[in-house]
């Protein structure tokens, strides 16, 4: 009596979840297939999915060409790698100190970390831009910050800004130190291990999982952050892939000749690295949101 009912439920579940998954995957399939078409074919297709009459890799040639996507692609990789290193180092160092040392003002630092998470980013978006353009002695500015354009359009803007949202990872590391046995640190100290060696040789490997959570989420977040480079850098060769795509995508709305397959090739290229990271490390990504959810 009960068994067929359960089988029916299971079948309904399978079918509906497959439908939902296909719906979610559809834009990706569309982008991949569209990127394999010629511009002329894309305008004339008559199907639900852009199925290419003849497969072409011309658009990917453009993605990797020197005057095409090669520079922004390389910049995107560099930027994600740089912020990952920087955030991991900051999280381990500050997180360890906040978890283990006793000093005056500790509560204040923790308060800053928590308070920073609820400040809406709209409050700093435009003021940051103005201040960057007014930095003294840079980009033709005098000591008053007048006369030039500061660091606007400077490639350094890919690497310098550090939002206070990244402090969340410091907090996460501090929390994770609570379940880390002090005996390990004590033993290392008895063997003559100094502070820096302890960070690199003991904490980095033994806190591997939490470091992976921080590294992977930071890398993804920065790869997908199109807004910062889009606002500050106006030159494709100094920009990132996702920021350049923001320009291309918003131009799709305008009148005139549009090369959808080329945009799709770049978009597919921008999605592949995060997709691969997700496939291999989804455990850490999910742990990242889960721990942020519980502790934030």
């Amino acid at each position, binding site marked *: 009596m009960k068994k067929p009912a359960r089988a029916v439920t299971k079948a309904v*579940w*399978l079918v509906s*979840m*497959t439908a*939902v*998954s296909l719906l*979610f*995957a559809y*834009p990706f399939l*569309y*982008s991949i297939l569209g990127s394999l078409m010629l511009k002329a074919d894309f305008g004339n297709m*008559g199907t639900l999915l852009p199925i290419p009459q003849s497969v072409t890799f011309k658009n990917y040639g453009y993605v990797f060409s020197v005057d095409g996507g090669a520079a922004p692609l390389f910049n995107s990789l560099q930027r994600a790698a740089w912020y990952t290193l920087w955030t991991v180092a900051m999280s381990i160092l*500050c997180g360890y100190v*906040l978890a283990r*040392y*006793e*000093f005056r003002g500790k509560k204040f*630092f923790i308060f*800053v970390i928590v308070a*920073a998470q*609820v*400040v*809406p*980013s*709209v*409050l700093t978006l*435009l*003021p*940051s*831009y*103005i*201040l960057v353009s*007014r930095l003294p002695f840079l980009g033709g500015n005098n000591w008053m910050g*007048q006369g030039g354009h500061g660091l606007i359009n400077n490639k350094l803007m890919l690497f310098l800004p550090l939002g*206070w949202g990244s*402090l969340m990872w410091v907090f996460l590391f501090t929390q994770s130190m609570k379940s880390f046995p*002090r*005996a390990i640190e004590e033993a290392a100290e008895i063997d003559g291990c100094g502070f820096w060696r302890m960070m690199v040789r003991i904490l980095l490997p033994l806190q591997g999982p939490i470091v992976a959570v921080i590294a992977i989420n930071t890398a993804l977040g920065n790869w*997908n952050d*199109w807004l910062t480079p*889009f606002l500050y850098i106006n030159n494709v060769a100094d920009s990132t892939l*996702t*920021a350049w*795509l923001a320009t291309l*995508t*918003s131009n*799709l709305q305008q009148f005139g000749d549009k090369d959808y397959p080329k945009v799709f090739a770049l*978009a597919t290229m*921008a*999605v592949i690295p*995060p*997709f691969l*990271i*997700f*496939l291999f490390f*989804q455990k850490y*990504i*999910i742990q990242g949101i889960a721990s942020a*959810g*519980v502790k934030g």
Partner: protein
Amino acid sequence: MSAIAKTASKAKRRPSARRRREVRRAYLVLLPFFIYIALWNLVPLLYGLYLGFTEYNALGSSPKWVGLANFQTFFSVPEYGALLWRQIWMGMLALLCNTVISFLLALALNVQSRVKGIFRTAIYVPNVSAVSATTAVFVALLNPLANQGLNKIITALGGTAVTWSYSQFWMVFWIVAYFVWQRVGPAAIIWLGGLQGIDPSLYEAAKVDGASFWQQVRYITIPGLKFIAMYILLTGIIGAMQMFDVVMFISKGNPFGLTDVLMYRIYRDGFINFNLGMAGAESLVLGVVTVLFALFYLWLQRRSEDE
């Protein structure tokens, strides 16, 4: 365990030289990072408080203090109020749809199955993809020509082609659809974590006492998910009140500004038209409203807990 406790208590009686070294090291490590972050965040935050009270057109010029003039403009010109209201209702609509759909997906994924991982990947991947990359597909699908995108399918099925961007309804629909498609994954995973965190023996006990399915949902599942719901909605409010990327890429505020939102206006006033003082005032209004919404939500939550 006792060994750890012993070393921990020993650690409390450290010699003071060592204690002093730790204090010094703590500041040496923390201060550079915190000062650097303050330069990039706290200084702009404070500068923003000043910016909204100035007239400042073009980056090359100097800001001129005008007091409350920008805020008077904001609250006397109806257009700004409309932009703020649209930010609120479009943002909340998107957030509501996202919260409900993510909860349903979490319920659907809260089962024992070997293929569950594939479905979870499918609903999560949009979230790890850049907004600027995936909106391009939506723009292509919403091509107004009869032989392009979704219209091709509609006309093939015998319908008439829709000029999507001429209709407020359709533009809002696609903005919300994209919002949910992009953000439902993390919310569903957080819900799922909450569902799995509820002690199964509670359900067993309820069944023994003869509780119905809905009673179980009402008295076990919903109270057990309170904190999760708070997190999803609180971060959701802050995010939805600053949503403009989806609007910028999908509708550009069309038709006739009927899907335009305040955040998009801030972007245009600030970064395109360089009406910096006014954009600063708009930012302050939106920032304060966002924080008020978050606080209001926290207050509601606190009150319902007291009952």
